[in-house]
């Protein structure tokens, strides 16, 4: 069969690819979406089971998914197995690359925290001189954030803080629990704002590409979606230098195929998109990757610091004595460091997730065992109060990914090598986050039971960003402010690889807003016949 040229080839079906498909098809543009993994049948593929029916009694299968700390025996089959799709990393610098290749990608499983970046992130260099500014501001992206928040039904409360921009919320006017009120009062004494968390409610229990974006695209009749095909590399027209399609392989049979396209939109997830660009350029004269005249493709890898935190107990809630409304609820402390003051040993900042629990305590919070431990757990049940950090990671040139030509995945595609680590800025920030959490909870009269100062390995947050960053200068960035390649005008990269800095915020709302904005720009350019 002769190859038919598709209008737009979208690689990836998660939040960024789903948004691109929705925007483009609703403007009448035909799209072909390729996804590396299968479609989930939510009835067939899931069932409630007791742990004792599983082969390893609820323990992870030993040795499986060693870098996916989120994995357990119940959900192990949803993650990418690194035996099938390996990656390498610099010795002593372990990296947790947490991946999902199911149709819909990681949009099926995200934590739904829904934040806007502020100009403290978009214009970070203006504040402290480090790194680069984004080529856009909050004002540029705000209209798109609003539309995304409406689609995802983000519940939140307007707080009027410049570092925690308000949005188009389903208003959260729920009352604070008593324990939270005490914590808020402690925060006021220390000039630390305690706000309502913001979260995507979604529809029918899901806030995913597959239920909020792709159905609209399919409804247009303009979207063709193909699961179980692994894209090997993009192809380029040698005469024009433009992207003209992709080579891909059937996941099951290993049948090699190709497709031609007028435009390519990469939305495979931050590091997979960069891997694809790097692999696509392996055979060129420089071997430096496609769309990489700047030489920064693969560089400036960032994520967010997760792991440091504390667990406390609210004394008045012990022994079943909690009064109604004392416990429960969550809060968010947005970044408060280096806004109006300057921290002595780190720049940028972190946020804190705060939870008041009515549930049993984790036994790890007590240095005890046997009957004595059980009595403590009975006594402390329903009194838990915990805080966890989400910290910004600075973008360094040498924190990077490249192709490891010595290792290939199950489809003979060269794998990614990750070379990154946290620096003193992240470690100092983590220490401040835990010490501040302890000070606030002690001020509130809570008992600190356990604490951890050590960040989880880089990548753990599943918020990898950068490596294909945007900017106004083609010599220092891969994409322009529309997520369009400086080098190849019919190539767009719409996932988090475009990020210049990451802040502390869950990146999902920003990914969605950027993809919406980029896709509308692409549609306009196609209508103007500029592409």
């Amino acid at each position, binding site marked *: 069969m002769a190859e038919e040229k598709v209008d737009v080839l979208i690689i990836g079906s998660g939040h960024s690819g789903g948004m691109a498909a929705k925007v483009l098809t609703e403007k009448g543009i035909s799209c072909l979406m390729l996804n590396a993994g*299968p479609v989930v049948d939510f009835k067939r593929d899931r069932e409630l089971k007791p742990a004792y029916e599983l082969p390893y009694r609820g323990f992870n299968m*030993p040795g499986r998914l060693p870098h996916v700390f989120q994995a357990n025996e119940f959900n192990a089959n949803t993650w990418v197995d690194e035996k099938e799709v390996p990656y390498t990393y610099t010795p002593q610098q372990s990296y947790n690359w947490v991946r999902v290749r199911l149709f819909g990608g990681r949009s099926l499983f995200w934590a739904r925290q829904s934040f806007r970046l502020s100009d403290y992130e978009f214009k970070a260099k203006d504040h402290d001189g480090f790194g680069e500014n984004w080529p856009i501001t909050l004002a540029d992206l705000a209209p798109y954030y609003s539309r995304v928040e409406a689609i995802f039904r983000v519940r939140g409360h307007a707080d009027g803080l410049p570092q925690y921009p308000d949005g188009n919320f389903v208003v959260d006017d729920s009352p604070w629990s008593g324990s939270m009120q005490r914590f808020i009062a402690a925060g006021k004494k220390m000039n630390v704002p305690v706000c309502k968390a913001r979260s995507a409610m979604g529809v029918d229990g899901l806030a995913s590409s597959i239920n909020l974006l792709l159905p609209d695209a399919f409804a247009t009749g303009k979207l063709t979606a193909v699961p179980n095909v692994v894209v090997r590399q993009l192809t380029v027209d040698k005469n024009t230098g433009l992207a003209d399609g992709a080579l891909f392989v059937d996941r099951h049979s290993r049948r090699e195929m190709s497709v031609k396209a007028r435009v390519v939109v990469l939305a495979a997830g931050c590091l997979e998109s960069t891997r694809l660009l790097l692999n696509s350029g392996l055979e060129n004269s420089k071997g430096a990757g496609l769309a990489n005249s700047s030489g920064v493709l693969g560089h400036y890898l960032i994520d967010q610091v997760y792991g440091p935190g504390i667990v406390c107990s609210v004394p008045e809630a012990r022994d079943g004595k909690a009064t109604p409304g004392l416990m429960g609820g969550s809060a968010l402390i947005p970044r408060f460091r280096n806004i109006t003051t300057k921290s002595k040993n780190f720049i940028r900042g972190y946020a804190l997730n705060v939870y008041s629990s009515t549930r049993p305590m984790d036994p790890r919070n007590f240095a005890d065992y046997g*009957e004595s431990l059980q009595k403590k757990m009975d006594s402390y049940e329903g009194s838990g109060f915990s805080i966890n950090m989400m910290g910004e990671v600075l973008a360094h040139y040498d924190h990077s990914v490249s192709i490891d030509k010595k290792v290939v995945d199950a489809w003979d595609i060269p794998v990614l090598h990750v070379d990154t680590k946290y620096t003193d800025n992240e470690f100092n920030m983590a220490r401040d986050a835990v010490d501040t959490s302890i000070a606030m909870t002690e001020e509130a009269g809570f008992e600190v039971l356990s604490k951890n100062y050590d960040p989880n390995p880089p990548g753990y947050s599943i918020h990898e960003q950068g490596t294909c960053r945007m900017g106004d200068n083609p010599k220092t960035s891969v994409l322009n402010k529309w997520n369009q390649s400086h080098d190849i005008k019919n190539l767009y990269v719409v996932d988090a690889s475009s990020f210049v800095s990451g802040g502390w915020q869950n990146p999902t709302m920003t990914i969605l807003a950027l993809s919406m904005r980029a896709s509308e720009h692409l549609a306009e350019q196609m209508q103007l016949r500029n592409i």
Partner: protein
Amino acid sequence: MRRRDFVKAIVAVPVAARTMFGQQSAAPQSAATAALPPAAETAPTATHDKGFFDYKAHPIAASVPDGFATTQANFFNERQMATLRKLCDVLLPPLNGYPGATQAGAPEFIDFLIGASPADRQHMYRAGLDRLNANAEKQFHVPFARVDAAQADKLIRPWLRTWMPDHPPKERFASFINLAHQDIRTATMNSQAWSIAATATGERAPGIGLYWSPIDPDIQMYV
């Protein structure tokens, strides 16, 4: 359309398609050849899956072996296993109508689990059990398996720590004691015996979760 009719319709499609394809054949079949049944026509459904289209599944009450069988412990040596059994008895005895770790088969399950684990975890367990036993011999002149409750407390309590998930204590022996404690509790509370006890006391059994089956697994993994 009833499901049975729908299934029949699907089954009929390949036959119809073959008939249409046959009509396009340039060379007419001879009478003798045409009288023979098409060789491929009966092959796909004639044997093992015959009748399955009409079969309405009956539930099968499947069970697990833990309720009547014992896991054979064969990873730890005899002394290490005795130490592990004692550690299980001490850290999680029967309480409030719930089985202890031993009654839930936790020592044998952990022997199996660690035997299947990466080398560093195996080493941590073996070295940890050996050291616990050596400490008992040194302090009380008996194997750990024979210490009394007070002696066990003196051997274990100094090493207990509070810690958060993914961040166990950094000292090697403290890490073993606290991780083993966590493993023993998980192996016990996720056991069938614990689930039965929870049901008997009218509480919701722990360890029930949403299990994801392998989703369209890569067929090349099996060839």
